[in-house]
């Protein structure tokens, strides 16, 4: 783990969006969740408890559990890639689809991932009654929801920014749509996509652990895997087992990084356009090995040939009403109106259904209470991100300005960001239980336990990239102390910091669901907050209240992003850009 990965501006942060479309996307998604679950509940319930193999705390089983967990990750990643290619293409190529798909995507990534689980578990279990497969799908789907959105955004973004001259060349060469897709569009979007895949993967470990052992009402799912092992260890108060699981995960993440991602990143570097090739190219010893060994090359060659052949086919998939025509005919304008009306009607209907569902099942008092809890969690997230920033920004700068140190620290920070922090929760919980500490205060740090590292490694990257001339100018003009931080360094790293903080805050909201309510054997600790509320309602299987909780949390996240992060990001992009 020697090479430092360059930060890519996450697709999440830099897209441009028409805000009014959120009004459409928001109810549509929640409505979908509502219909899916209520419908299934009505027709399929009651479902008998799932029969699964019992989890054994024998450490010898851990390699197998780790393998199954990793396979889930891979399956989810595969699903995410397929989803990305299709959804991103549709959104970018069809104007009308884009109007709907882009805002939906935007909201989807604001919905807390763990919120989905309670619904999807029910849904998938119902799809495959009495089988493990359903639970497997639910877990994979949960990981998928944590990975797919930012990859899709990145792909969509790349498709929209393919340089004009390259488009013209492919037209000039008379490439068909299918050929152009594989020859130009996919390669062009590769670096951004792979960077986002890495980010997704970091988050994914967290959710795979959380989604393997979950109880929704009377249904308990325990899939053989690292997460279930942990849940069992917690239930049995076995601290040694917790230690084993932490060790296993460390090894798994390192292997995953070295054997899958680093080679991918190094390989994808060739897709970079020339003008971004300034820094040192990423290296991977595995990739070097593969490229230098002839045997492996020979084995891989047939696959490569097959793929190339596939890409060379002249398949002409004409997307409905692709955007290559600028002039709108009368028919097209008519269709626009129909399409608009259809969407409006749909949204209206869904809104009405949503309102009537919540008002009939929950009531206004409960809604106010949940919004109140949302504010408590909001304060918790804000305070802890602020606290993490106060600690990590100065440290990150000091590290980043020392290239040797940065090279050492950076992979560690990236590893810590990928490490599922929920594995460490029991250690803290034991401590809190032992000293009988106030959970409202002492559970709070768990929220940023895993995500604070995004701030650190982005700041380190920012400080490392800070131009030497600026540093020399500051020294030459004797700019020191607070003036140095205020006028020189802080503005210089701000874009990087914002990138890290956005990721950290998104992660913190998600983590609140598992960190505001924790247990150690029979000891249950809960802090006041929306996360705890959702967790409790999930355990109780109270769907209207889960839905309400997710609704409110999504709303908070969307508003938080819109009112805080996006304006800050705009400042970073426009005012604080270097060069």
């Amino acid at each position: 783990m020697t090479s430092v990965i360059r930060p890519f501006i996450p697709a999440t942060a830099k897209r441009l969006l028409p805000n009014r479309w959120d009004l459409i996307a928001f109810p549509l998604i929640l409505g979908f969740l509502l219909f899916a679950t209520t419908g299934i509940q009505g027709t399929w319930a009651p479902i008998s408890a799932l029969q699964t193999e019992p989890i054994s705390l024998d450490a010898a089983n851990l390699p197998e559990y780790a393998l199954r967990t990793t396979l889930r990750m891979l399956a989810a990643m595969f699903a995410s890639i397929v989803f990305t290619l299709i959804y991103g293409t549709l959104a970018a190529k069809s104007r009308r689809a884009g109007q709907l798909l882009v805002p939906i995507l935007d909201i989807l990534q604001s919905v807390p991932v763990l919120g989905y689980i309670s619904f999807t578990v029910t849904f998938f279990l119902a799809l495959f009654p009495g089988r493990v497969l359903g639970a497997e799908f639910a877990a994979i789907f949960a990981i998928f929801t944590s990975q797919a959105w930012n990859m899709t955004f990145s792909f969509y973004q790349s498709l929209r920014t393919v340089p004009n001259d390259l488009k013209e060349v492919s037209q000039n060469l008379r490439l068909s749509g299918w050929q152009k897709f594989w020859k130009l569009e996919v390669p062009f979007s590769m670096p951004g996509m792979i960077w986002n895949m890495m980010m997704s993967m970091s988050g994914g470990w967290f959710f795979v652990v959380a989604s393997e052992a979950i109880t929704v009402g009377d249904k308990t799912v325990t899939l053989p895997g690292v997460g279930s092992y942990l849940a069992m260890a917690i239930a049995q108060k076995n601290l040694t087992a917790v230690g084993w699981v932490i060790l296993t995960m460390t090894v798994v993440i390192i292997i995953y990084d070295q054997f899958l991602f680093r080679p991918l990143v190094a390989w994808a570097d060739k897709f970079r356009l020339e003008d971004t090739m300034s820094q040192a190219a990423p290296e991977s010893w595995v990739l070097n090995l593969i490229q230098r060994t002839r045997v492996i090359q020979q084995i891989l060659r047939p696959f490569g040939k097959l793929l190339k052949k596939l890409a060379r086919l002249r398949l002409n998939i004409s997307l409905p009403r692709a955007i290559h025509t600028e002039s709108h005919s009368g028919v097209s304008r008519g269709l626009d109106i129909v399409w608009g009306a259809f969407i409006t009607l749909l949204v209206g209907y869904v809104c009405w259904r949503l309102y009537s569902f919540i008002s009939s099942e929950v009531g206004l008092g409960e809604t106010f209470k949940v919004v109140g809890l949302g504010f408590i969690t909001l304060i918790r997230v804000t305070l802890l991100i602020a606290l993490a920033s106060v600690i990590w920004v100065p440290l990150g700068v000091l590290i980043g300005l020392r290239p040797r140190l940065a090279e050492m620290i950076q992979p560690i920070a990236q590893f810590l960001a990928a490490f599922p922090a929920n594995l460490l929760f029991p250690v803290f919980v034991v401590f809190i239980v032992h000293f009988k500490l106030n959970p409202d205060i002492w559970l709070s740090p768990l929220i940023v336990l895993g995500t604070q590292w995004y701030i650190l490694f982005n700041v380190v990257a920012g400080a490392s990239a800070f131009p030497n001339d600026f540093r020399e100018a500051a020294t030459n003009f004797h700019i020191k102390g607070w003036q140095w931080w205020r006028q020189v360094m802080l503005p210089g790293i701000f874009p990087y910091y914002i990138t890290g903080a956005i990721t950290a805050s998104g992660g913190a909201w998600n983590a609140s669901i598992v960190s505001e309510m924790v247990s150690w054997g029979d000891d249950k600790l809960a802090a006041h907050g929306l996360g705890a509320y959702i967790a409790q309602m999930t355990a109780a299987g109270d769907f209207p209240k889960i839905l309400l909780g997710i609704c409110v949390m999504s709303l908070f996240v969307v508003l938080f992003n819109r009112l805080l992060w996006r304006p800050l990001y705009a400042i970073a992009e426009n005012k604080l850009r270097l060069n």
Partner: protein
Amino acid sequence: MHNETTTLRQEIFSLKHVDKGYHKGGEDDIQVLDDVNLTLHEGEIVGLLGRSGSGKSTLLRIIAGLIQASSGEVNYCGQPLTGPAEGVAMVFQTFALFPWLTVLQNVEAGLEALGVEPKERRRRALAAIDLIGLDGFENAYPRELSGGMRQRVGFARGLVVNPTLLLMDEPFSALDVLTAETLRTDLLDLWNQKQLPIKSVLIVTHNIEEAVFMCDRIMVLSSNPGRVVAEIKVPFAHPRNRLDPAFRKMVDDIYALMTQRRSADTLHKVQLEIGSPLTEVSTNLMAGLMEALAAAPYNGRADLPEIGSKLLLEVDDLFPVAETLEHLGFVELRDGDIELTAAGKLFADYGTQERKVLFAEHLLRHIPLAARIRRVLQERPGQRAPRLRFEQELEDSLSDGAAEETLDTVISWGRYAEIFSYNDHSETFSLEDMEGGQ
């Protein structure tokens, strides 16, 4: 007008026997500066003229207190220099303006650091902005300004702190020709009208004409390591006329000096060894220069400054290509002139394929590293060798950066000559699959 009395004026800066080397893994140091002596007096503009690799920017940074000399004496106003001194301001090639501060804030930053009161700060900053011709742009951000305007902000920022010495690191080389000239004359006007608070200016440049146009005294530095090889007084009065024969003569002499220098060290042409550094010069540029030389009006022989300005090649572009061609046996350099050899003339006449063959022949004969790579590949059973093998060999005698550049250079020449192929992803040389491929 300043220079006649130079010797009587007060000494501001003096460097005695300054060396600068960088440590490299316990092996011998990479020597950047070797026994440099330099004195700056009140009232003069001094130029540090040298090619890339002459350590002129390093020297400037030693004077600025940004880096320390390995050995030797550095005195500022009679006192040994420790760290960045007050009264030494710097202007950067890249401008180095903080993009998040307005023009006014950028200019004020240095004053704030000195603890000047806000009111006084504002007054002095506005005065500097006026002086340098930036009024009206106080509230603009650097990104809203053109390159020339940005460098004016750089000057204002430097001047506002009333420095004793103004250091300029290639201040005009990032600007287009016309803008650079305007800035030069504006600065010289202010200097000659004694409107500037500074007592002395040190300017680093690789542009010979610029040095002759602006400076009272020029220190010419050699490359690898940097040594002062000549000190030239420029006796012309300002404003100087670039077309004046005496001016042209001085420019020509410096050209001759800078090409001669290299050979004077060893009396005859420097022989390349396997570990000699190579400078990245594209084969297109080489072909272009040979074609231009072969054609009228040069017909095989040209004056270096003349062909340089005709082809819009600055010293840093022209010298490497000229020297590379000399190493390859396509031209000869003498007294500031460049002359095609018989092979060079043939090359200019040839078509694409014949050129490649001729180039390959010369490459293998005159560049030992190319011949070495080819031989190693031929000896190996698989006819392949990793880049690392040669890189490590080069790193014995070169810095990491130079080793990399040298190898990249020989790769691009070797590819053109088709004497070996190279795969950038696996980082291996080979004699196989010369037709390329993925």
